[in-house]
């Protein structure tokens, strides 16, 4: 099924006013969004949303993401609350810093599943219909995991994390239980840190490390676990691994390095198809190998540099 996709056109913009028209700090490269700074290089806020999330909308529970991971249809000038992009009703013109949308469908509702159709080529589910997704997942055997499908779900684990703040045996028990849930769900970093919290001696060290995990500095066991934590890449978008998630890379660099926010970028579906096709193609000079085979023995950094250059060529990043 060929979907009608938003088209993003890019152009160079030298103005200090960048993403959604907000001012960019020339020194840090971050955008000032009233309540918080937005790191455009990472596509996320540098501090958590103090308003918090809505249990009925899993996307909102990640307090560092920008507008439910759907900047094509929402904007957040206050840093507190997403709102419908004014003038985003198709055909506008803009840049990566000010994305321009040409679309043929209305913006999704900000609640629940509006952002749930991630289907990276890595785990392709080319439909936004949950029933079709379930069938596709079962046929492909990929079994995409949603946040709600994880052991215990976010609510229970959130309660355990809160209980973990209680000093003494109650807090220690809660942290151990939370660690077990994280381990089961593939969040190795969170599991280790919850265990660390259970030990009184680690104190602030554990808190700092936990913040690092929350900030996405520690990756996930699998792409499904990553998506369960971060949700879909956004309407018409797919997550793309900058350093590919092929088996030799996972073995050499570890799943945490591959399925990590630092190694992910949201890419329009049609471009993602082309980019993946590029990696599967043979080119002169590669000794008869595909690009992916040629990259495989190279270092993580070399592969990352290459992946970033590809994204630049396709206009995904500046």
């Amino acid at each position, binding site marked *: 099924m060929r979907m009608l996709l938003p088209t993003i056109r890019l152009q160079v913009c030298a103005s200090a006013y960048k993403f959604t028209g907000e001012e960019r700090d020339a020194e840090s490269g971050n955008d000032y969004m009233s309540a918080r700074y937005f790191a455009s290089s990472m596509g996320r806020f540098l501090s958590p949303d103090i308003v918090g999330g809505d249990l009925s909308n899993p996307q909102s529970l990640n307090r560092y993401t920008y507008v439910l991971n759907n900047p094509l249809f929402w904007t957040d000038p206050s840093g507190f609350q997403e709102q419908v992009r004014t003038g985003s009703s198709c055909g506008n013109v803009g840049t990566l810093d000010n994305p321009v949308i040409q679309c043929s469908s209305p913006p999704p509702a900000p609640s629940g599943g509006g952002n749930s159709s991630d289907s990276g080529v890595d785990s392709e589910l080319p439909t936004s219909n949950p029933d079709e997704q379930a069938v596709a997942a079962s046929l492909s055997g990929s079994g995409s995991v949603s946040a709600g499908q994880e052991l215990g779900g976010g609510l229970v684990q959130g309660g355990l994390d809160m209980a973990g703040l209680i000093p003494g045996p109650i807090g220690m028990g809660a942290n151990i239980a939370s660690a077990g849930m994280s381990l089961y769900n593939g969040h190795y970093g969170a599991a280790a840190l919850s265990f660390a919290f259970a030990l009184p001696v680690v104190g602030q060290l554990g808190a700092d490390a936990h913040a690092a995990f929350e900030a996405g500095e520690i990756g996930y066991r699998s792409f499904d676990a990553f998506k369960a934590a971060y949700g879909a890449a956004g309407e018409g978008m797919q997550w793309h691994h900058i350093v590919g998630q092929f088996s030799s890379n996972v073995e050499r660099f570890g799943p945490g390095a591959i399925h990590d926010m630092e190694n992910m970028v949201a890419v329009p579906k049609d471009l993602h198809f082309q980019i993946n096709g590029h990696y599967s*193609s043979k080119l002169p000079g590669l000794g008869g190998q*595909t690009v992916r085979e*040629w990259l495989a023995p190279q270092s993580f950094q070399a592969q990352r540099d*290459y992946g970033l250059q590809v994204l630049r060529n396709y206009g995904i990043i500046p």
Partner: protein
Amino acid sequence: MTNKASVELDDRELLSAFEAAAISFGLEFEKGDSKKANRAYARCEAIQAEIHRRGSSMVGCLIELLDAPLPWVQYLAAAYTLDVEPNKAAAVLRKLKDTPMALGVAAFTTLRAWEMKRVQIN
């Protein structure tokens, strides 16, 4: 033109076949259809091998294609003359790598692979 075996083509037909295969490769690569792109690539490889087998005059014709009007022909001509005309061929690839999308990526990749080999040799 049908995919007649490269050895059966006369010199002029061989160069035309190279251009056609280069365009076909570019179109499929741009679309992201790696299967068709790889088939077209195999055709390019076979033709360029035959061009080199026929000797310097045909290789000279391939070098002339560095100035071809079609960028995918330029790209493949450059890729296959890097060893015989490195300065000019690399200059063409450097120019093409700044092209947006697939062509830029292809030129960048071939150039990078060639530079990596040179570093290993030196």
